[in-house]
């Protein structure tokens, strides 16, 4: 992106600012390389770790849906087909950075040390699923669309104030870009040159509303123009491209280069959530066409072609992932329900006296309940 500063009163008809938006992709749908690759494409370990992370995410996802179908989990939002974005973001960030996620980023969360059991607990209706043992400063999943983006800006402002080499990352969907919170936070990030990366995960749909009905912008990346900083597009199903661009944005932010907006272009292969039936509003053909571009196959083929990986390792990985997921699911299912009175115990640091009678009433109710009253 380039822009020329206009002097305050330049009295001529002239072009006063210019912008352009770029797009990055390296792999075609079969994993073949279509342009010179970035450095990271040679880093076997990095890419294999990324691949593991992607596969684990998908395995987790499948289990979550199975649990939901059998009545063991609440409404669940699958990340099917978008795992590369989320896993790459996990790889691009450092542990000391802060993730401010929305509700589809299991890949990033897992990479940052949120446990699968915690994720199951969250969707299983248990607040303890937001008490991450790993990344203690990461925000929990945010449901009200786009409202987490100002939090990320606030986190970044705190980091900047304390002169820490840390970065805040907010992730959100294409739908979220229509909301004022997104714009307000982006604009502020520009003003203060915050160490903030905004990742818009453009999966083409916001429940039943297609990307084209959210905005007439040719790209979502160009929304950064309104905030005065750079925006770019990347093929979100090309794990190498997305890792490269997200890493660049995160490091730029860390090094005082300020905020970026990265539009990761991907596709929501699943229903919006388990409560949704996408066949009401989109065709089987569309989904089928997009399966061609799903990220696992593309990265695997690249890895195999690069001799970084072989089918046997692949089989082992899938098995390991399944085992880990099963263990986590078991731990989740065995987790005893919280005490009802816990709803009072984290409301304030110290429960105000005036609320004690309500808590007592609940405890009594719970005891009656246990007594089978």
């Amino acid at each position, binding site marked *: 992106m380039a822009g020329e500063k206009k002097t305050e009163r330049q009295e001529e008809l002239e072009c006063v600012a210019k912008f352009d938006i770029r797009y990055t992709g390296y792999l075609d749908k079969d994993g073949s390389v279509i342009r010179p690759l970035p450095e990271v494409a040679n880093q076997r370990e990095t890419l294999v770790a990324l691949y593991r992370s992607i596969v684990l995410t998908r395995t987790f996802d499948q289990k979550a849906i199975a649990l939901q179908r059998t009545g063991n989990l609440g409404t669940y939002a699958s990340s099917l087909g978008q795992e590369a974005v989320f896993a790459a973001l996990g790889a691009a960030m450092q542990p000391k950075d802060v993730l401010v996620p929305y509700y589809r980023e299991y890949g990033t969360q897992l990479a940052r040390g949120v446990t699968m059991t915690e994720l199951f607990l969250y969707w299983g209706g248990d607040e303890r699923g937001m008490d991450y043992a790993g990344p203690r400063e990461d925000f929990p999943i945010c449901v009200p669309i786009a409202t987490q983006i100002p939090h990320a800006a606030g986190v970044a402002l705190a980091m900047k104030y304390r002169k820490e080499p840390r970065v805040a990352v907010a992730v959100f969907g294409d739908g979220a870009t229509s*909301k004022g919170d997104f714009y307000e936070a982006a604009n502020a990030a520009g003003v203060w040159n915050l160490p903030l990366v905004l990742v818009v995960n453009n999966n083409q749909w916001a429940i039943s509303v297609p990307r084209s009905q959210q*905005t007439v912008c040719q790209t979502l990346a160009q929304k950064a123009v309104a905030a005065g900083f750079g925006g770019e597009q990347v093929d979100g199903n090309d794990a190498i491209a997305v890792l490269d661009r997200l890493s660049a944005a995160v490091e730029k932010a860390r090094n005082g280069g300020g905020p970026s907006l990265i539009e990761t272009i991907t596709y929501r292969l699943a229903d919006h959530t388990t409560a949704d039936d996408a066949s009401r509003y989109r065709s089987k053909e569309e989904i089928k066409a997009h399966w061609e571009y799903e990220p696992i196959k593309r990265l695997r083929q690249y890895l195999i072609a690069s001799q970084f990986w072989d089918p046997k390792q692949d089989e082992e990985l899938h098995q390991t992932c399944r085992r880990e997921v099963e263990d986590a699911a078991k731990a989740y299912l065995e987790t005893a329900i919280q005490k009802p009175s816990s709803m009072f115990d984290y409301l304030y640091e110290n429960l105000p006296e005036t609320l004690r009678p309500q808590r007592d009433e609940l405890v009594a109710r719970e005891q009656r309940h246990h007594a089978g009253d």
Partner: protein
Amino acid sequence: MPEINLVEAVNAALAFEMAADENVIVLGEDVGVNGGVFRATVGLQERYGNERVVDTPLAEGLIAGLSVGMAAQGLRPVAEIQFMGFIYPTVDQILNHASRLRNRTRGRLTCPMVLRAPYGGGIHAPEHHSESYEAMFAHIPGLRVVIPSSPARAYGLLLAAIRDPDPVIFLEPKRIYRLVKQEVEDNGESLPLDTCYTLREGSDVTLVSWGAMLHETQQAADQLEQEGVDAEVIDVASLKPLDAQTILDSVAKTGRCVVVHEAARTAGFGAEIAAQIAEYGLLNLLAPVKRVTGYDTVMPLYRLEDYYLPGVDQIIAAVREVLEFG
């Protein structure tokens, strides 16, 4: 006459009024092809086209603000907020504009809009999908706040809300969207706003509630009947303006009152009802006015939500308390 449930009644009212008045425009997120996440607007876009059933970009403040502009031009926007948990970005527009436009312009511009939203807990929904904040709107002058508790009242009150010349917040208790079916004639007849509905006459105690909690309240009344207690049950239906008189008259008869709501207790709308009784019905009171409500806590995630929601047993316990009082 067909038997329909509450959400079908909402749909029928919308369809009826869209056919009757081309100024009626439905807008919101996923209200078009998808027919709304609860199916409240299903079939409408097919019938009335996408200029009258409009999927908006994802922005609730926008939805409310657009509605104000449309209403000022004489349209009758019926906006859906997908869940009440996402209604808060509209508060600015509702409070600073929708509720005031007529007054500010001395009647020159008006704001005949309806803001619909499913609300309340009990369906094991995700975080932020189960709250009840009707009291917030009931405090705003210039608004109407309406909450149906049955298919028939959903149909009649929604029609009234759409036809009303002033802004109406129409909150739909989603827990009972599909709980009961009722015969509702799709004849376009509205029900009066600004009035309570007495669902059951009784002489021993007045139970006042609205929305989904009427279900438990009526169950409690049934059980109490078996114990020989004769409860009057009032559906407030229009929280704003509040028909306090019906409640006061009932309490004059029974001398006892229990208010039941799902929202947090403190500064919930039950407080207004208790306050009215304390001010205008004091001498009739034979016992304290009890409130059976949600706790003053954040609505818990779904595993504990049944502990948050007031239950039949709590209503009965409160009634016993007021009956045994003094």
